[in-house]
């Protein structure tokens, strides 16, 4: 028997697999197919104070080994969420982490206060990294003071565990990990999608109505692994890694790079039953390698001593 228990700061998850925000609706959509209590956690779709319509379709387009999305954070808002979805998630036994969005710093704080007043929220993932909305969000996540300010304001407003979700659309993601840690984050998650674009050469029009979108899927995985590794060197708080994970080997790669837990997003679209497959394969790997506790692998990448990891090519001065 392998111990999959995953300590994550103040939280302890049954296993390291989380459903990624924006890829799993509000969780309840999957109740006819899955036992949600079997997942390490469900990170629900991003919530603002009020409902949002999102962008006009087409909202997705496939690219080699990946996809672009520009959903635009369509959502029901935090008040409807706590009334209409949260009770069901509790009844289903899901460990629910809520992805919180804001146009302003105050909105992040207000959404978190509403969530703090309700039973059944295990933690908050602060969405300071969505590339698809004009105001708020990534504006905070692309500025070190902005990241610090949002995290410390939310820290003061709630006792729930908080986990800022970092954007890869910056020069040095590790400095943002440090800013989050210094502001009182319990953990960080990374990466959100890479801002990207696809053009139909026949019509000469962008393939997405929103022109640009976020790239996800296996195509981004090596970059996300590198960023996870960089953040592991920079901070002590737990890291939730994500970016193109589609099987157990991918999970292990992120864990060896320094992730304590992982999120699966795009791969769940193609295979909503991926969770049990990955868990079985993780168990087989551990058995094969004589590992009794999966968490022992975290940060265990074996980098030859003589060859220090090369410095990133580009650092802000």
């Amino acid at each position, binding site marked *: 028997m392998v111990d999959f228990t995953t300590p994550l700061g103040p939280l302890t998850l049954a296993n390291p697999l989380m459903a990624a925000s924006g890829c799993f609706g509000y969780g309840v959509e*999957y109740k006819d197919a899955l036992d949600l209590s079997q997942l390490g956690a469900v990170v629900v779709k991003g919530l603002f104070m009020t409902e949002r319509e*999102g962008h006009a*379709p087409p909202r997705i387009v496939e690219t080699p080994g990946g*996809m672009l999305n520009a959903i635009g954070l*369509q959502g029901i808002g935090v008040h409807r969420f706590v009334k209409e979805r949260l009770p069901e998630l509790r009844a289903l036994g899901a460990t629910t982490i809520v992805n919180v969005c804001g146009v302003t710093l105050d909105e992040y704080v207000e959404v978190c206060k509403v969530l703090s007043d309700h039973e059944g929220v295990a933690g908050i993932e602060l969405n300071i990294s969505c590339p698809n909305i004009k105001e708020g969000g990534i504006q905070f996540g692309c500025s070190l003071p902005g990241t610090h300010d949002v995290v410390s304001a939310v820290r003061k407003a709630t006792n729930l565990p908080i986990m800022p979700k970092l954007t890869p659309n910056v020069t040095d993601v590790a400095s943002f990990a440090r800013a989050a840690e210094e502001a009182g984050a319990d953990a960080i998650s990374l990466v959100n999608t890479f801002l990207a674009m696809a053009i139909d050469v026949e019509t000469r029009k962008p393939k997405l109505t929103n022109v640009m979108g976020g790239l996800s899927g296996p195509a981004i995985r090596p970059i996300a692994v590198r960023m996870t590794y960089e953040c592991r060197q920079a901070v002590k708080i737990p890291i939730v890694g994500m970016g193109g994970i589609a099987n157990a080997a991918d999970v292990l790669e992120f864990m060896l790079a320094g992730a304590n837990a992982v999120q699966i997003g795009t791969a769940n*679209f193609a295979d909503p039953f991926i969770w049990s497959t990955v868990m079985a394969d993780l168990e087989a790997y551990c058995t094969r390698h004589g590992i009794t506790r999966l968490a022992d692998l975290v940060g265990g990448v074996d980098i030859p001593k003589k060859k220090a990891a090369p410095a990133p090519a580009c650092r802000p001065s």
Partner: protein
Amino acid sequence: MLPGMIVDVQADVLGNRALSAEYNVVTLAAPAIAAAARPGQFVMVKTKPGLEPLLRRPFSIFEIVRGADGTPLGISILNKRIGIGTGQLFDAREGDRLGVLGPLGQPWPLVEAPTRAWMVAGGVGLAPFATLTEALSAQGVPLTLFYGARRGEDLYYAEWFAERGVDLVLATEDGSRGTHGRITLPLEAALRDTAAEAPVAIYCCGPTPMMQAVAERAAAAGREAWVSLEQVMGCGMGGCYSCVVPVKTADGGSHFVRSCTNGPVFAASTLQWEGLAHHG
């Protein structure tokens, strides 16, 4: 299996019959999905293992394939080769295994006799009407299929419906079979010629402009109509919010809802057709 349960079956390809250089019918061994499916529901098919393409493709369940004793054995899919996924399904070979996830989505509402059901199909939009025909004819509902295509040879499976007692009204754009022109021409005539007190329900699937035209004509005639939409879908489960369509709101505006979970079948009068046509 419990009703409403969704399963992912690694389905053997039992057969692949080309109807033309564009159209084919693939039969898949998926007894659990065949047993649970209701008329108008769809499946998400992984048309080839690996990353190209990354996502599954949505397909209406065409026929329920049954054994000699009536046991559901699988489903068939009516496919038109358009892009990568439909191209792979066109090329599927007997013995291939494809991931088939379903049954998904809201089925057609079923009317009861003496209401007559008029099914209006354009091209590959014929797909959701075979299961509807079986369900409604079992209830004794009189059925008519208004079926349009570019050419006479593209009117696949017309005989399948005729053999099941469905009245056929055909139209082709080149005039080679049935009415010369679009299927909305004979539909308009039928609406005009049917007494207002005779109950008729309209079911429609085809290209968006055709469905919009049918929706407008049904509304003008005071007839209830349902349409089955086909949108780009990421997951088919309600997880990704990519397949949204605009529905009317009480204040005269519109609101995006997911066509995978709220649809693919919608009451035509609830849709905001201008937005759908623009972004469809």
